[in-house]
């Protein structure tokens, strides 16, 4: 019996080696290790053996079975590896061909700039307020210390609808409205972005519709140095920590004192170049301390409350940041312009 088992082992291993496919290997397994296989048969005939021989042959039979099994497993994994390799070879592709285009859109550059500024002021504790684009003469002018006939109304040529209705020329009416709602009691801390309109002929530097962001802080004991601090924080975050700011006197009817803020020119580092027209400074925004008439008209006691306001043009900021030379680009919506700034 011992010989028979050794013979079977050799025979089986030879067949395993010859097996070229996984199916052939499966047949070998069934033939030799199956319930009706020769090894099982040998084991079944063990009854004829002596007590002493039985365990010896039993052990041998198990060893043979184990050897054949291992050989089959090894061969199996070898065949599988080969098959996989073959498959991978078949499946390989030209990875340099272009991918299937994904349709992606993006925000308008002005929206990106406005949201960046919004987020920056939100970080400093400001809320965002919005208001109507068709305004009353009262909120657009009178509540902002610009009574009828005031010469400074010339500074902003206005699209009137009726004598009392107009396209807002700035977003400041939102400030007047917000202050009015607070009944002269609570502090106000807000910025108001939005579209504004002026009676201008569209050209490279003028647009009859454009955007503005104005800010307002009214509270007890607001100082001009606070305005300077807030504007510096804004300028550093928006344009870079290395930029310097300067304030210089200006005039707006709704603020007193009024200033304009410049930042140092990035192109020349302040030495003067064509971008800054030789001055080393670039004008960014107008600001000032809220005029007492404006506070009083909105119900605030100007002895107790003070505040500051500022206003800037996202178009101008976008043009400066990206070197855009014509304001009309923002409103013609040429896809070749828009898509340049989808990740701005």
């Amino acid at each position, binding site marked *: 019996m011992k010989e028979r088992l050794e013979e079977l082992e050799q025979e089986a291993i030879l067949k395993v080696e010859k097996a070229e496919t996984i199916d052939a290997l499966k047949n070998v397994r069934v033939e030799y290790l199956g319930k009706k296989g020769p090894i099982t048969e040998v084991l079944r005939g063990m009854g004829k053996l002596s007590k002493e021989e039985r365990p010896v042959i039993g052990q041998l039979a198990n060893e043979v079975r184990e050897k054949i099994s291992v050989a089959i497993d090894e061969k199996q994994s070898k065949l599988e590896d080969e098959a996989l390799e073959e498959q991978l070879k078949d499946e390989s592709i030209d990875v340099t061909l272009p991918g299937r285009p994904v349709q992606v859109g993006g925000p308008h550059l002005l929206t990106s700039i406005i949201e960046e500024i919004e987020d920056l002021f939100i970080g400093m504790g400001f809320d965002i307020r919005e208001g109507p684009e068709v305004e009353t003469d009262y909120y657009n002018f009178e509540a902002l210390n610009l009574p009828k006939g005031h010469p400074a109304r010339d500074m902003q040529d206005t699209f009137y609808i009726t004598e009392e209705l107009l396209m807002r020329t700035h977003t400041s009416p939102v400030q007047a409205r917000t202050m009015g709602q607070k009944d002269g009691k609570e502090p106000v801390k807000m910025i108001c972005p939005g579209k504004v309109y002026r009676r201008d002929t569209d050209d490279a530097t003028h647009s009859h519709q454009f955007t503005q962001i104005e800010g307002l802080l009214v509270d007890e004991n607001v100082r001009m140095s606070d305005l300077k*601090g807030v504007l510096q924080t804004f300028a550093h975050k928006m344009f870079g920590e290395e930029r310097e700011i300067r304030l210089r006197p200006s005039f707006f009817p709704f603020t007193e004192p009024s200033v304009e803020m410049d930042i140092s020119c990035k192109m020349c580092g302040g030495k003067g170049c064509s971008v800054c027209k030789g001055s080393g400074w670039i004008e960014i925004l107008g600001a000032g301390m809220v005029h007492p008439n404006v506070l009083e008209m909105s119900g605030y006691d100007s002895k107790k409350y003070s505040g500051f306001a500022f206003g800037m043009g996202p178009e101008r900021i976008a043009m400066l940041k990206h070197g855009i030379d014509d304001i009309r680009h923002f409103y013609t*919506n040429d896809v070749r312009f828009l898509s340049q700034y989808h990740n701005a």
Partner: protein
Amino acid sequence: MLISLNWLKELVDISGYSTEELAEIITKTGIEVDGVYEPEDLPENIIVGNILSCEQHPNADKLSLCQVDTGKETLQIVCGAPNVRAGQKVAVAKPGAVLPGNFEIKQTELRGEESNGMICSLQELGVKEEDVPEAFIDGIFVFPDETEIGEDAVELLNLDDSIIELDVTPNRADALSMAGVAYETAAALDREYELESPSYEETKEKANDYVTVKIENEEANPYYGAFVIQDVEVKESPLWLKNRLMAADTRPINNVVDITNYVLLEYGQPLHAFDFDRFNSEEIVTRYAEEGEQIKTLDGKIRTLSSHHLVITNGEKAHAMAGVMGGAESEVHEGTTTLILEAAYFDPRVVRQGAKDHELRSESSVRFEKGLDVNRVRQAGERACELLEKYAGASILKGVSEEDHLNREETKIRMETQRLNDRLGTSMISEDVKEILRRLQFGYEEKKDVFDVQVPTRRFDIAIFEDMLEEIARIYGYDRLPYTLPNSAHQAGGLTEEQRLKRDVKTYLEGAGLSETITYSLTDKVSAEQMISPELQEEEQGAIRLAMPMSEDHSHLRLSILPELLRTHRYNLARQQQNLAYYELGKVFISEDEEHQKQPREITRAAGAISGNWVTHPWQQEKKEVDFYVVKGIVEGLAERLGVTFSYMKGELEGMHPGRTALVVCEDEPVGFMGQVHPRYQKEWDLRETYVFDLNLDRLLEIYEKEETFEQIPRYPSVSRDIALVVDEETWAGDIEVTILEAGAPLIKQVKVFDVYQGEHLEDGKKSLAFNLLYQDPERTLKDKEVEKAHGAILEQVASQHNASLRQ
């Protein structure tokens, strides 16, 4: 305002500062500098020469052959100017001289005659043509006879001057004069300046005996002064005076006009001179014009006036529009010998009205409009008298004939050092404040850190504490203010729910492949009223029109965003951009009343327009054009993003394809529409097949549920069943869906179309719709029997309501 530094130098000590530095200081302390013009490209080697003889060039009709004495030598120069004469003192560019534009003068031969240089015109020396006196426009410039031969012509003509251009804001009208700028510069540099008082001889005769002044409306004309000046010789102004005017971009005319212009620049006070004889009256009456009254102004135009225009009359006839322009009739001319010189104060609003109505904004009217120093009006007249005495040989009659209602009181303002510090964030002491007031030359009294400031009338812009705060701050220096943050810096800010949702909507649409646009709210009437969303059509009352549009293209407020979005498509298509997917979040404007008198309702809409290929895969030949269902998918996704439920109804709308338009309904009310643009419009507007959507975003944000309650994740399995129904081809899937959901309630959870088929194996006029149905109970596992029962009920209902049969 153009500031000549050669002039300023005579008023204030500006030594030690370069032009750039001075411009920087002026900008930082007070007035914006718009430009600095240094004398670059200066002509060199130009001297004064005397033309000894001037003869016809032997070989050229239009040329002259001149012998010119330049002091050291006599040069023969060929000159082409028509006004060249012997005996003239002229600017000579000798060989080697370089004129602006790098034009070098060389010894040369012209038509056979030697020419050793050039006799120059002012233009050739770099003066702007509009500033050149008329007599010299078409020829060479001629110096006054007394000019020394050999002198430097560049210096004589003030061509080495530096100019600072100021952009004077409306509140700083005091700086619209050299005197004002001198006060400002003196304060900025901490140097001295005071405007000198004029002086001249007066005759024994009194102005009052020649002419009297009567003001009819004190409010419109608080002051009118008339000087009478005799023996005037109208002639050219002295060179220095011409230079001053030319540096300020003003063309010299004659001494009388030039002197009034000069005083305007120096004092900021406009003056006007009448020819006394032609004025032809012994009284001056200022009054409002009569309706329809006419006057011929200096520019030769006949102007028709109305009752809110102020005029200067001789008691009968208007001889000037007050502050705006003089009349032609009494204009000063070469033969004028006696003048009436007007120095007046007119109400800014009155002058503004006149200048605006007649489009006659001038250096004079602008100054009247912005305000004048009440203490400088009469003094400016005196200054002109002083100059006329000197440069027109005039005799000045005693005194001034006037009517005077001006309030010359100085404004008093109280300010406390502490309050200044509180407002500025500084820590000044009273000594610092005094120092600043001294530099500003403002009078004050101070007791225990409380100042009572007396503001000079030249600073008529200062009225309240905050104005003084600005004065103190700017002279103290804004760059010296500390950087602090507001005490409320700890407060949290943030977006409102609505603002956050709007950002979400944008992000969603961009993720869905659309790019944001911003178009104009103002458009033409037709576009403004096109493609109005159905839910707005009932209430809209036509587009609101601007009172005075700049053009018809931007004359009306839009009622829909889509026409502008489609215009954007057309623009890009015309530029070979094929695949376009745009959206815009913007407002439309619904008038609340027919007359458009009330503030309109502004509604934020989310609109989009898509055309061209939606899916492309170039090298696999995959290409799919946008269709209705692409846009619908985007709209459905938006509903999901906002957590609202839309249903869709077939819709018909002007401008839209009648078979491919759906109304979008939310909470039983229409909130917008979507579909294909009508092919007729597509053709008319040069568009490709274009699909649009337009939704009332404001309404959707209202509907959006704020508290999203958590929905349990189902714990029990669902049962899925498919059915294929054969129906008439007009039957809509959406209607069957509704029936299935109603009939299968409460077990049916979801219905989805997964196949639509029409063609072989089906009767003509029939189609097959296949649905996947999902049954589920949140509390337990469903039994087959229950599902069968519900399924049966559904089949029964679809059969009876939609004539649907199961497809075999």
